[in-house]
């Protein structure tokens, strides 16, 4: 497929095309977010709305059982240094 037809030439284009869409964000510290993307910059600082955060808490003693904590936030700035990946979740 011709990459120009999708308007994607570089990685940030994928994020640009996700503006106003719900995205999935993986963060350092075993955290994940799902939220609607409204802004980003070159540091991958993000502003998301209608956010659900999932924190995976691995219990070292209990055979590595994973506890999951969830919380919702209305409008959230995410500092880019914690971002591992951003993806449009509809396609995953």
């Amino acid at each position, binding site marked *: 497929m011709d990459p120009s037809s999708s308007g994607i030439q570089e990685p940030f284009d994928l994020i640009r095309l996700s503006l106003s869409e719900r995205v999935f964000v993986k963060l*350092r510290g075993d955290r994940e977010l799902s939220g609607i993307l409204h802004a980003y910059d070159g540091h991958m600082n993000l502003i998301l709305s209608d956010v659900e955060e999932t924190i995976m808490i691995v219990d070292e003693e209990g055979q590595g059982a994973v506890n999951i904590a969830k919380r919702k936030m209305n409008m959230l700035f995410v500092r880019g*240094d914690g971002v591992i990946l951003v993806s449009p979740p509809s396609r995953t």
Partner: protein
Amino acid sequence: MSGLQGYVDQRVLLILQDGRAIVGVMAGYDQKSNVVLSDSKERVYSPDEGVEEIPLGLYLVKGDQIVLIGELDEALDQSVDLATIRAEPLPPIRY
């Protein structure tokens, strides 16, 4: 600039990257938010006993070690009996 103006000569609390809490009078700071405290003390928190204050005297803290600088309400701070406070130390910063 969201600098540190207004904190000079005030009693402040510094929280550091490794979780330490230090109180003192801010004697000065620079562009990189390096800070000099006078009459400073480390406050060591523990869940089993009261807060221990360790005198540090004149202390220079490198800007990149600083998490937060807070202005202390002196009257409020003095009204707290540190010997009665039980708490875990603050966790270190994890990137």
